[in-house]
């Protein structure tokens, strides 16, 4: 599935990155290569761009760029209740409908 199809709180692993060469380069430089684990943190107030965390940093990109990143889901937000996941669940205004 596409990165942009994840829901806030989902964890996933990158399986491929496709984009215009320069953008792809930038995404890969920032750590989005095959095998990288990431978590979709939230969508911006107007639904675009999105924020993810991977390798301990916070990245933002537009859905347009996220469409090119294929991932497979590791765990969905519903599955996990502990730690700060749970905390976000309680405060989840940021969730996409």
């Amino acid at each position, binding site marked *: 599935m596409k990165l942009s199809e994840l829901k806030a709180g989902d964890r996933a692993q990158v399986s491929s990155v496709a984009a215009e060469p320069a953008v792809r380069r930038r995404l890969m430089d920032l750590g989005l290569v095959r095998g990288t684990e990431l978590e979709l943190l939230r*969508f911006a*107030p*107007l639904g675009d761009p999105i924020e993810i965390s991977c390798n*301990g940093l916070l990245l*933002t990109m537009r859905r347009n760029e996220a469409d090119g990143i294929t991932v497979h889901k590791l765990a969905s937000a519903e599955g996990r209740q502990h730690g700060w996941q749970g905390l976000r669940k309680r405060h989840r205004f940021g969730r996409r409908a």
Partner: protein
Amino acid sequence: MSQHKTITVALAGNPNAGKSSLFNALTGAHQRVGNFPGVTIEKHEGYLDYKNYRITVVDLPGTYSLTPYSPEEIVTRRFIIDEKPNVVVNVVEGTNLERNLMLTVQLMEMEVDLLVALNMMDEVEQQGISIDLDQLEQLFGSHIVPISARNHKGLDDLLDHIVSVSEGRIEIRKNKVSFSAEVEKAIDKIVGMLCHEPALDKAANHRWMAIKLLENDREVYTQVQKYPVWVKIELALQEAISECGMLHSTDPEALITEDRHAFVRGAMQECVRKPKTTRASASDYIDMVVLNRVLGLPVFFLVVWAIFQLTFTLGKPLMEALAYSFGLLSETVAPHLPAGMVRSIFVDGVISGVGSVVVFLPNIVLLFMGLSFLEASGYMARAAFVIDKVMHRFGLHGKSFIPMITGFGCSIPAIMATRTLKSRSDRLATIMTIPFMSCGAKLPVYVLLAGAFFPPAMAANVMFGIYLLGIAVGLWTAWLLKSTVLKSDSEPFVMELPPYRWPTLTSVVFQARMKAVMYLKKAGTLILGAVILIWVASNFPRSSALDAELATETARIEASAVALELKAEQRQKLEARIDAGQLEYSIAGRSGKLLEPLIRPLGFDWRIGIALVTGLAAKEVVVSTLGTIFSIGHAAGETSLSEILRSEPGFSKATALSLMVFVLLYIPCVAAVGVMKKEVGTWKPVLFYSAYVMLVAWIASFITYHLALLWM
């Protein structure tokens, strides 16, 4: 005297790693530092003397990789390749090693004389991260020096290492990251071909060139393409692509990056221990509010509004105190000066003119402190995230937003900051919005007029309204440009959010002091000069008829048989009338009159016209010119400029609003136009733009004036 040896050191690293902080700490310079990626956009040189060495330090724009992406990143790569600095210091963010070390690997591949400065050790310790430096040095082959640029820790150690590396006393082991078998095979093949090309430099790093060719690096492509060996190389590249596709279902470029990541990840696992955290950090909590789906935009507006509110409300008592002391000053000075020309130039010119600008010092300093808090805290990048979609609707970019905010301070650095945008059409559109982001120099005009014509509670809101109008016109302009002449695909938005950081007290105080000094300098040079010119232009030539009238009338009053007080009053009235007549007769008066028909529909008389023209030099001059022209004909220290304006029959609330709108929108100062030309490249678009801006300003002021006349 021993001779100085010179060493050139380049500071390279990811954006926001603290290169400029280190540069400032080493050289004592004051380069801009901010907690968001892409602060530095040009290389800056500075030097220091250490032991027997003169060390030239070069601060470079941050870059994520050595296959450059945006214009300012190209600067970095060019510098390292072409200028061959003696030592490349790779500044690395200790709290974010995984991404930072990716660049280190690429520097290793270039086989430069590398030294790693592990920055932000204070944060590393605070977060309880432990790093095995020895092991890391083993893996990367170059020395690693822990420092904290912000706290000036570890700098001597770093300098010692720089000296040792440049002297060759520290061996840099040319460790190699080995890539997947297919990539290595292709590299070997291409290196073999490059070696056999007689025209190519034997000393060049062939392995690096081969890697870059596999990474589709355009610059190396064009470099090699002109040689006959290219035909063979192209075949080898094709072969590598198909092999990687078959065996790894990806291309060489991605495979190389993956392999570098694997290397870095391995190194991290061996050398770095992070404490396990289960709880959300303070940063996460703040983001939950600030980036929240519902609260994000309101928070954003609240933050911007708060800054202006602060600037106005907190600044007001200070400003009034300053204004009061200038009034006192001219009252005390005036009697000691010989009446006539000299008194007039000091009292009407220097004190009223320059003083009217200087009184806004508190507001300016507060505004800049607010902006630098935004820059230093880490909110800037987050604001770009929150607002990106809105900007996108107008054809702009979330990142356009950072220069726009900078533009509230000064247009010049803001226009230069657009270099972080990759696409030229986005850059141009962003540059064209910046003059509408009302700069700090326009602030005195608003504070003066809003303060004079509106009750205190309203004044701050009127000002905020003016700023909003500027933003609206700016966005509208961008939209207009992007949907006509600057049509293009939208630039991708990929950005990192830095961790929140508290600005240090010393840096805040320092920044405030620097802004204050700069403002006072401007007041003492440019604005003083303009004031004197305006004074001269509004006092010469003198009408001898009026002079004669003054003499005869004075004599008549003196001779008349009325009471003394009455005489004084009559004399004052007479002088005011003659002064006003002289002003109209002067160059300034006459040229203002020429201009008047053009601006009459906006509610401006010729005096405001003069102020607007002189405002092209710098926007504060609008205020100082009003100060000089309007104080002619008023006794020294009699009343403040805002009271004088209020008492002028031709100056109504509607005039004030219209003038604020006009000053907001019309041509930026000459310095900003110059920088615009430099960044855009040619005059034509800049001149078109200036004409457009004038038109917009005229129309907007016209509407404002007539609406205000109707409603107020």
